[in-house]
């Protein structure tokens, strides 16, 4: 582990974004083991919540196996140095949830909106700030907005009091150039730090994160073994290893992160995080990564093609949160096929 100050701050979201990949089935034992492992490796921030943020447990997004607030309390107890963070999507979670997790010992709130709807975060950013939480404004599916458009939205979050701004390539749809243009526009327009949350659908997550760093991003997200929505996230241990190669100081112990991925996270994964056809289509069509497993289930249930569902969702320009449209599309495809047979 390096002793000098890190060049960027690593935020690990295995226990939040990773929750999508295991259909929100985390239990206490897994949470405690992952928190302790990441904390020992020197990770500064560990995010935990239902994959769709606080309050996400639902028919639409999948029910959590264990109540998330119980798990968050255990994460807060298990950590020594790492700050515990929660994500919240206005419209799904409530300001009351922020108060609850603050009581449990959470130190950071990330308030996430679709990349064109920052103004629904005002209530929540202000509440998080008033509780004394470090508060990040988090813009999702950022490939659906231009660099200038993102700046406009980010300025709103900055004006509500956000301490820093993130954008998420939630569909893993961005090229390195897409990331560079957005980060540099944000860095030059904002007074606060910028961060990037990358997904791996086009196999670009690590490269895009490094590019973000080079353009001035000061916060980067990863998940252990890439566990996460869609084809998965930027794998924390690989990002740390590649950063070392570039001479970028991360402040984390790369080998300890590999141990967490290999010995704790991989054994509990129901499927390895690969870029299969469905994962690639998400990135290619620009569809929200968490639709992956939901569309797989709907495809099985209604005997239609998952690829067709995902392409139609892309055509409809659905956004994060509209998982109900997966059933809608599956039913329409069933009818279309029935009519075609006649």
């Amino acid at each position, binding site marked *: 582990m390096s002793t000098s100050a890190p060049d960027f701050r690593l935020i690990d979201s295995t226990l939040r974004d990773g929750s999508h990949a295991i259909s929100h089935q985390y239990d206490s034992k897994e949470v405690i083991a992952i928190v302790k492992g990441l904390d020992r490796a020197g990770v500064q921030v560990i995010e935990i919540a239902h994959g769709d943020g606080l*309050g996400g*447990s*639902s*028919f*639409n997004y999948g*029910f959590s*196996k264990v109540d998330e607030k119980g798990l968050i309390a255990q994460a807060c107890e298990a950590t020594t140095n790492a700050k515990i963070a929660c994500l919240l999507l*206005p*419209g*799904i979670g*409530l*300001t*009351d949830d922020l108060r609850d997790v603050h009581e449990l010992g959470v130190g950071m709130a990330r308030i996430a909106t*679709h990349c*064109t*709807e920052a*103004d*629904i975060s*005002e*209530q*929540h950013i202000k509440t998080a700030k008033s509780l004394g939480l470090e508060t990040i404004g988090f813009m999702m599916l950022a490939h*659906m907005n231009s660099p200038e458009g993102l700046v406009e939205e980010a300025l709103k979050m900055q004006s509500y009091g956000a301490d820093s701004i993130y954008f998420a390539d939630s569909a893993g749809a961005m090229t390195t150039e897409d990331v560079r243009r957005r980060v540099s526009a944000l860095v030059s327009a904002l007074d606060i730090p910028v961060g990037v949350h990358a997904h791996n659908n086009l196999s670009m997550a690590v490269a895009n994160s490094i590019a973000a760093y080079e353009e001035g991003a000061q916060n980067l997200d990863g998940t252990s073994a890439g566990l996460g929505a869609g084809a998965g996230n930027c794998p924390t241990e690989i990002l740390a290893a590649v950063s070392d190669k570039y001479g970028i100081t991360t402040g984390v112990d790369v080998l300890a992160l590999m141990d967490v991925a290999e010995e704790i996270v991989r054994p509990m994964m129901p499927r390895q995080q690969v870029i299969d056809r469905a994962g690639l289509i998400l990135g290619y069509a620009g569809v929200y990564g968490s639709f992956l497993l939901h569309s797989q289930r709907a495809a099985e*249930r209604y005997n239609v093609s998952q690829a067709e569902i995902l392409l139609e969702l892309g055509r*409809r*320009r*659905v*956004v*994060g*949160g*509209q*998982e*109900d*449209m997966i*059933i*809608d599309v599956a*039913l*329409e495809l069933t*009818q279309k096929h029935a009519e075609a047979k006649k």
Partner: protein
Amino acid sequence: MRCAIIGSGNIGTDLMVKMLRSDVLDLVALVGIDPESEGLVRARGLGLEAPHTGPEWILENASNIDMIFDATSAYVHVRHYQEYAEAGITAIDLTPAARGPKVIPPVNLYDHLDAPNINMVTCGGQATTPMVFAIRRVIDELPYAEMVSTVASKSAGPGTRQNIDEFTKTTSTALREIGGALRSKAIMVLNPAEPPIMMRNTVFAGIPEGADHGAVIDSVHEMVAEVTKYVPGYRLKNPPVIEEGPFHTPGGIVPHRAVVLLEVEGAGDYLPAYAGNLDIMTAAAMRVGEAIARSRKEKDANA
């Protein structure tokens, strides 16, 4: 009945257009706070009074107003609702402030005709509570119901955006109090796609062991027909389905869930047809206002 609308945003303006067609509600004024707002300009163009002094104007003119329709925001309604009641003005509240009893017309239109304050829940609540009620009435117990409402970004004004917590809380409460679910959750999503999408609402309901699935489906169809009577653009986007679980809901494990996929096309009175969220809210408020007006007329005739 002499009525005023307060709040000259999307909802207030749409309601104004509808109320001018009513034969029992007599619209006196559209009240705002910005004289240059599109709603007030339009009201003046229609020959209506269009003051911009907000709640103050209502209270100053209380002797000439029987009923107000509040289309401001939850915060504004909470601040003034007692003053309206003290001034003898019936308030139909179109914000999610949830001060008075909640009314969803096809379920409980006639239950609160004498209340000084009636809450219209939310647009999503108006669209989905009837479905939850329709399912509940043909099964013994509804352990858990959930709704997801997606509206076009363009149809959600600043009031809606600042009130998103109130929206989900009030809607969720209505699914229990009026829909009859034991537990509930409400979710709201904004979609910025161009051209704007129609309002979409999805209802999920946990169906316990032993329920008559055919009766659930029939009841949903009957209720859709009820709502269509006052919101012509309300329809099932796909036939209702019962999916096999099990599902581990907060109300316990259920073997099935009902999924009802709805679309609401607006009448295009103010915003274009995609803004069904405005339409279902203002149409429901009109229905309540007209029911109150008719009931008072009847009482006066009998007195």
